[in-house]
């Protein structure tokens, strides 16, 4: 079948591929500037304490030390990404009076090299007055718990309520009701490039920053807030970024401290967080206590669901407020609950801050929801696929008062997974296949950041040789947005992918854009890029139509570098020749196209949603509780597939991360201290643990997306933990309700099951 597209859907190399396989890709980590200094951050060893005194005099005297700063050197502003709500902007970054978690920054040093800076940290004397601390949100909401932020009662940072239908009345009509409790663990992002920044203040008072970031615009704006600067005096450049996964779009200690030090010295300062700092003092996935009540008719039709959630917020708000909202919304996914109620509470604790991480609250809600629906199916004697089919979302469905879903391929995904399971021969003993269904958003509609700009914007400039420079504030953090957006641009203009050169993530030259989070770039940036390309294209067409003497009833289009009549493709001229003449005709001005996208009247959450169903096969060793992930097969739909190699990569990578969330990743703590802050001790899936991964692509078309495309990044992180839990139940009949599902927990549950059997 020939595709109607020329570029979209092709298995292309990423536009930055050769740089990445030759080691020539330059990351912030690789930036070295003349006269550059190296910075280090001193962090609190205590979970909760008043800062009485900081003596930096000895550190300042150390040869090679150029500056030492503390909270007193800052303006004392508090940052937060929920800028519309000042009470939620609660993080000073360099603490002035109080520290709230182990890792909270208290001072920073700039020196001629990293070793000297490190040595200077030891010479800074901080006098603390230790305060009682609290680590578990269920403890922190008690009356007598220590108060972490002044004026915040019961340490409740924020609460969220979502409701539709009449939940209490509906539960009365149910034949069967289940109530279950779950605990979702923390997870570290483990970006291979740790957080880093090179900040350079000039004597002209302007700030230039190279940093590993998911949103250059957010970082620029947050700098402006913290430093009382005009945002246009700040240039933030995101070069190649060594992973983000939700951890890199809030102003962090590397960015802020390097800027404060550079401001003092007018010399560039580079700060690269160590792996230990990355684990202990950057943000992480939000741990949640989940209480679920689910009611159904005998035939499996679900009538009502109630979810109550208490999340461990850690010391500050961060993006945790969004995670609290999204976990509540996605707790209803991907099903048509006629009655639904959610109450979520985010509670401050004296632990490292919890915030956004790939899936953004939905991996938690999907794990608990998909575990419970399997339990429900089991109780009612209904097949797990069948109960999902009976209740699953369909195209053009309105989540009451919340969201409108246009394209939705959930049912086709269920069919494919059912086929896949039926194809398996009889499984060996102690093997099981569990399923899990999910959905996710293609970018968020909410504007808590209070941007006055369009959510996404792009500029296209067509040069004399017909080649295109594409400028977008999107950030490629490895997910391949530079490639996807270049493909969309090339497709719209009818030219080759090699004809597009992309400039992204640089606030000095790119239009403001919210950046890479919430799986927004393919749809939102994609629309902006497509519109910018269309704008440029229409200008070329004016010249082409005149040049060709076309009857005005005919339409023109460009394909493969040729401008032609749509109805008579054989009549055409070279795109490259027309561009030359057009620019001459415009008095030598390059052709510029502009495009932007902001969702309007698309509900409260997102303009589009993707769906999928995953089946995980496990093999359990009943003697030890150890189990192996044998195969993970995913049927998913993400609208038109723009970049197939990119989507496959997203899918397989998501299984590594989401499988890890179900299987092994955790951050155990002792009095607020993370006990495994190294890659040796933080267990994640390595190549030998990685299961086979099969992909079943489902065709859908999203009317709101560019060329029909929607998200394929984060949604894929949602199903795996639930599928693993359900697979273990199928394999050996034990159910684990708290993540991660470690061999130890499986072992204990198996022994418990045996004991109960004997007791009977």
């Amino acid at each position: 079948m020939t595709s109607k597209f020329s570029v979209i859907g092709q298995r292309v190399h990423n536009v930055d591929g050769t740089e990445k396989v030759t080691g020539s890709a330059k990351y912030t980590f690789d930036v070295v500037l003349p006269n550059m200094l190296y910075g280090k951050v001193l962090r609190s060893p205590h979970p909760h304490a008043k800062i009485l005194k900081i003596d930096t005099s000895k550190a300042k005297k150390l040869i090679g030390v150029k500056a030492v700063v503390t909270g007193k050197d800052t303006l004392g502003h508090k940052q937060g990404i929920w800028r519309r709500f000042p009470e939620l902007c609660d993080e000073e970054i360099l603490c002035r009076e109080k520290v709230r978690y182990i890792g909270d920054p208290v001072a920073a040093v700039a020196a001629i090299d990293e070793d000297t800076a490190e040595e200077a940290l030891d010479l800074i004397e901080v006098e603390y007055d230790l305060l009682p601390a609290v680590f578990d949100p269920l403890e922190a909401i008690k009356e007598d718990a220590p108060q972490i932020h002044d004026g915040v009662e019961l340490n409740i940072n924020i609460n969220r309520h979502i409701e539709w239908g009449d939940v209490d009345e509906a539960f009365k009509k149910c034949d069967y009701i289940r109530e279950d409790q779950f605990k979702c663990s923390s997870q570290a992002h483990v970006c291979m490039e740790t957080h880093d920044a090179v900040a350079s203040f000039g004597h002209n008072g302007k700030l230039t920053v190279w940093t590993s970031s998911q949103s250059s615009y957010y970082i620029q704006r947050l700098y402006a807030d913290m430093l009382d600067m005009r945002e246009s005096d700040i240039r933030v450049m995101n070069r190649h970024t060594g992973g983000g996964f939700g951890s890199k779009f809030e102003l962090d200690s590397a960015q802020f401290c390097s800027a404060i030090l550079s401001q003092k010295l007018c010399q560039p300062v580079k700060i690269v967080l160590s792996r230990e700092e990355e684990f202990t003092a950057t943000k992480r996935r939000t741990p949640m206590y989940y209480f679920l009540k689910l009611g159904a008719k005998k035939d499996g039709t679900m009538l009502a669901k109630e979810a109550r959630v208490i999340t461990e917020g850690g010391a500050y708000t961060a993006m945790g407020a969004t995670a609290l909202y999204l976990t509540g919304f996605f707790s209803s996914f991907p099903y048509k609950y006629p009655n639904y109620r959610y109450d979520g509470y985010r509670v401050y604790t004296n632990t490292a801050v919890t915030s956004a991480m790939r899936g953004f609250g939905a991996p938690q809600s999907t794990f608990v929801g998909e575990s419970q629906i399997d339990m429900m199916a089991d109780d009612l004697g209904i097949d797990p696929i069948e109960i999902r089919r009976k209740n699953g979302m369909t195209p053009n469905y309105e989540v009451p008062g919340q969201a409108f879903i246009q394209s939705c391929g959930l049912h086709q995904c269920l069919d494919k997974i059912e086929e896949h399971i039926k194809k398996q021969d009889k499984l060996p003993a102690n093997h099981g296949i569990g399923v899990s269904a999910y959905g996710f958003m293609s970018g968020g509609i909410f504007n808590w950041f209070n941007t006055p700009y369009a959510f996404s914007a792009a500029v296209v400039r067509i040069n004399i040789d017909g080649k295109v420079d594409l400028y977008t504030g999107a950030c490629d953090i490895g997910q391949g947005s530079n490639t996807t957006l270049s493909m969309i641009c090339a497709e719209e203009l009818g030219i080759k992918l090699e004809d597009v050169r992309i400039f992204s993530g640089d606030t000095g030259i790119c239009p403001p854009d919210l950046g890479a989070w919430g799986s927004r770039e393919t749809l939102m940036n994609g629309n902006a890029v497509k519109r910018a390309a269309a704008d440029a294209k229409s200008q070329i067409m004016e010249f082409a139509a005149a040049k060709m003497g076309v009857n005005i009833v005919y339409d023109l289009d460009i394909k493969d570098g040729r401008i032609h009549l749509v109805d008579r493709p054989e009549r055409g001229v070279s795109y490259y020749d027309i561009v030359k003449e057009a620019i001459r005709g415009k008095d030598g001005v390059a052709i510029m196209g502009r495009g932007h996208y902001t969702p309007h009247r698309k509900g409260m959450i997102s303009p589009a949603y993707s769906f999928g169903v995953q089946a995980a096969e496990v093999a359990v060793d009943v003697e030890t509780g150890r189990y192996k992930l044998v195969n993970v097969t995913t049927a998913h739909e993400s609208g038109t597939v723009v970049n197939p190699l990119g989507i496959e990569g997203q899918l397989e990578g998501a299984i590594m991360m989401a499988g890890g969330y179900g299987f092994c990743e955790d951050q155990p703590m002792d009095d607020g201290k993370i006990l495994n802050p190294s890659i040796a001790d933080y267990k994640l899936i390595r190549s030998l643990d990685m299961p086979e991964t099969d992909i079943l692509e489902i065709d859908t078309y999203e009317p709101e997306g560019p060329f029909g495309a929607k998200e394929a990044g984060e949604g894929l992180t949602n199903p795996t933990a639930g599928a693993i839990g359900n697979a273990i139940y199928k394999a050996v009949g034990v159910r684990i309700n708290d993540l991660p599902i470690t061999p130890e927990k499986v072992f204990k549950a198996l022994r418990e099951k045996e004991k109960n059997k004997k007791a009977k």
Partner: protein
Amino acid sequence: MKKELKFKVNGQPYDLFVKPKTLLSEVLRDELGLTGTKRGCNSSSCGACTVMLNGMSVKSCSVLALQANGSEVVTVEGLAKGNKLSPLQRAFLDHGSYQCGFCTPGMLMSSTALLTENPKPTKEEIKEGIDGNICRCTGYNSIIRAVTAVVKGEYKEAK
């Protein structure tokens, strides 16, 4: 007190003076400007700094530079011959075996060392060969497919 370090990197002889505690990764990156070699943990557990030392893959953050005295080191910059990419580099491109790219140099070096030592590894041996390298983006399978394609002879050494 600095000591003399004489070694070859990507075929080029160097004669340097380094502090005894200097790591091989530091010399490569900071002295020679070979920034393709990354640092993800500085404790030999992530593999981003993997290079070849006398044909064997080592984590350059856990080798003292002076231990490389008299040795031949190959970094990711040494894989391509002029403008011709190595078979593994081309296979990585075709199979999308990289995303953020930060682990990619280390992955390529571990894979290259594996194929130098064992040109016909099984799938399990390929998995073992890269088990010391963390990739947080790809989920490894595309890397395994790329190495497999090279093993099957789908990518010839460029002349």
